[in-house]
Structure formats: C-alpha cells, structure tokens
C-alpha cells in the first residue's frame, strides 16, 4: 500500500516552522502553514489539499503554486514529490467569461 493511502499514519503533532505565514497560493491566499497543518490532519493527496484549502483552484489554476504545494506536501509526508498524483487538469485552460463560453460560433467555412 502506498504510504499516502494509509491514513492511520501519525505524522506527529504539528510544529510551526519558519515561513508558515508565507503565502504559497497567491490567487487564493493559502499559506505554507495551512498546507502543512492540513497534511497533519490527514489530507495526504494533492487533490484533497486543493479541495480543502482551495490552493491552486483560483484564477491561474495552480500554474504558479502547483509545484510548490507538491513540494510542501511531499516534505511533510516524507515522500518524493514524484510519488504524489498530479492535480487534475480541467477545462477551461484559461478563465473564460460566461457570456463567451455560452456563445457558440457559427461553423466557419474557411
């Protein structure tokens, strides 16, 4: 069983670290400390961290912070970042206004 799947694993008490007040996800203003604490609370996968804290779920869709968040979670769990499943990628690849998404172009004859 993968380490991240055994949720009975006790990571020990949460110890504050320097940099915990630093923002990691700037779109949703999530700090390093919040991410570390969530891992200690049993949220061991990137998907769970994103859904619980919203980091990587803002306007840039994690383009900036994904790698950083992954690094923090992996460090907290004592695993390699490669072992963590990447966050899913969902449309739209770039934010799009509702009115634009709603409007389908006529088929072009070019």
């Amino acid at each position, binding site marked *: *069983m*993968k380490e991240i799947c055994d*949720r009975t694993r006790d990571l020990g008490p949460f110890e504050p670290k320097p940099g915990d007040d630093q923002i990691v996800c700037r779109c949703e203003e999530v700090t390093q400390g919040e991410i570390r604490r969530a891992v200690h609370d*049993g949220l061991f996968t990137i998907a*769970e961290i994103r*859904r619980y804290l919203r980091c990587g779920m803002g306007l840039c869709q994690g383009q900036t912070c994904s790698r950083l968040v992954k690094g923090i979670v992996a460090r907290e769990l004592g695993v390699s970042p490669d072992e963590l499943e990447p966050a899913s990628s969902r449309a*739209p690849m770039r934010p799009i206004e509702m*009115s634009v*998404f*709603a409007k389908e172009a006529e088929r072009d004859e070019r």
Partner: protein
Amino acid sequence: MSDKTSDVIVVGAGIIGCATAYYLAKKGVSVTILEADEVIGNGGSTRNGGGVRQSGRDPRELPLAMYAVKNLWPTLSEELGADVEYCQGGNLRLGKTERHLEILRGLRDKAVALGLDMRMIDGDEVRAINPYLSEEVIGASWCPTDGHANPLKATYAYYTAARRLGARFYSGCPVLELRKVKGELRQVVTPEGTFEAGSVVVAAGYDSRKILNTVGIDVPMSNVLIEALVTEMEPPMFKQMLGTADADFYGHQTSHGSFVFGGDSGFETVNEDNGHDRTTSVTAPAICRGILRYIPKLANAKIVRTWAGFEDVCIDGVPVLGPVDEVPGLVVACAFTGHGFGISPIVGTLLAESALGEPTTLDISAFRYDRFAARA
C-alpha cells in the same frame, strides 16, 4: 497494516461514509473505512453543487432533510471543528412560464403537507429577495430555511474529525468481495488482505452495486455523468440556493465569492459511458446559457474550472438505506440520485445507529432495499 478487526467497517469514504464513521467513532465504536480511490471523497461528495435543501424533495426523503436542517447543519462546523460554510440563505426555485409555476405549486403542495415552510412568490417578490434575477422570472417557490454549504469542506471536515477520533481510514483499497461467516456478513476482502467486523456499511456510490453483488444484493440504479462549473471570486451578491422549474441550472455563491453552478446539456442519458469522468465539450456552454437567462449580470464572470461527476440514480428516485434482511450484518447506503449531500449528516447518524442495531432517530423503512417490485 496491523489491525484488521474492528466493530464496524465502512466501505466508501465519501461524505456518507465519513459521516457514518464520525458518528460511530463518536460513540466510541472502532471503525475501519476502506476507500477504493487514492483520494478521499473523490466521487460525488466533492463534485456536487452544495445544496442543503428541503424543498423539492421526495416526500419520503423530506423528513430527513428537515431533521438535518433543524438539528444538525446549524452546529456542524462547531461539532466538526472546521468551517463547512453552511449558509441558510433560502431556496428560490424559479419559473418563467405558467407551466413552470404549475410544477412549482405541485412541489409546494407536497412539502407543505409535511410541514415545510415553502410558499409561492411573484416576480417582484423574487427580485426583492434577489435583485440580480432577470425580469423573465415571473415567480418562484421560496423556502427560507433551505441553504447551501461547501461539500468539499464538509466531506473533509467529517473525515478529519473521524480520523481524530480514531477511525482508521485506508484509501487506494478497493473491496473485492464481501464474505459471510456462518450466515452473517463478517469479512471484507481487499488486495491488502481481509478485514473483519461485526457489521459492514456499504456507501460506495454506484460502485456499491458490484460490491453488493458479491453477496447477492443488487440495487436498481444507473450511473449518470453530470457536470458543474465554478467562477472566479466575485463580490458578494446573494445568499440563496437557486434552482429552476425547468431544471436548466442550479447553484449558489460560495462564501469565498465564487459561483458554483450545475446543469446539463440534455444529452446525459445517451452520452457514452467510457468509465471516466470527463466533461463534454457542450455541457458547460449549455449551463452558461441557462444561467445567463436568469442572471444576466454574471455575463462577465469568468469560469475557472468545469468538472464532471457520476450520480448513482435510483430507479425510484430516493436512496437505498439501512439494514438488508437477506444479509445480516449488512447496512446499505447508496443510490442517492444526486441529492445525498444535504441529508448526509442525518444519513450518517442513521447508518451509525443501524450498524450498531440501535433504534434509529427517524423511520427509514421507506428506503428499504426490498421495496422494489416489478410491474404487477
């Protein structure tokens, strides 16, 4: 994994499984939760629209929703030690035509008969409650005690709270088989080994079907892929949960400002089920068109994400809940048909009671597994 024996095993770590585990752990019962996915709550629990709604429910289900809204949701954040963003902002179900209003009146009549505060209001009153709604809306049903919460926060709040109380969660651990010992369900077989317990709660969404099949139980349900979307953060606009008589969209504004909306393209029932939860190229645009007909002000709100999720749709529209007489030791909770989130706190409570053979807080006989019968 060391300890494979516990009082109760819960199969499925969605919000139903996590809530059940929480209420069991709170009673001091040892509980093991087995989740097939690597991610906790990766099914409908974290993909739904977050409605905590009583109005529009099937009369069989309404007492559960009313109980949850009255007794559980208001204190849930406090109870679980995490903000589940519960907001009792009311529910407006919108109508644009006389036919729509007819549908809404029908829903109201059923709800009022069971004691729910729900009434019809005209277009002006609708816009007094929510000034962003277009003039096309000519009326709505209004249930002031409905609302919404954050399903992601609620799911993980139940999970983390249960875990703190000692519930043993294993993800990435699919159940291969349920096994009886001397006539009673006692064992759960997984690739990680066989787990044992006095009773087993199966709350695994549509996947419950093949798990239950291993002990000869088959729930008449189908697997339907539906989609939702979320916008960037917007300034606070309204607190109501919205739906429409035409069912062209539903949704609300979350506490952090983004809008979560769901809806459909109309092709859902015939879409190819290729096993993965991929969005289609036509659904989100259709949902957007639906929304903008009612809330034109959102034209420039930017969508940042769309997603899809499976609904376990029951043949008669309400879930299967409770002990299964044919298999002593088995408790079932599936086929929620897309409205399990709002009732999850009470369902968790009821399942915990059922698993321990205690009398249940509410009568759940209407949800029995053996209620289904073929055409006479």
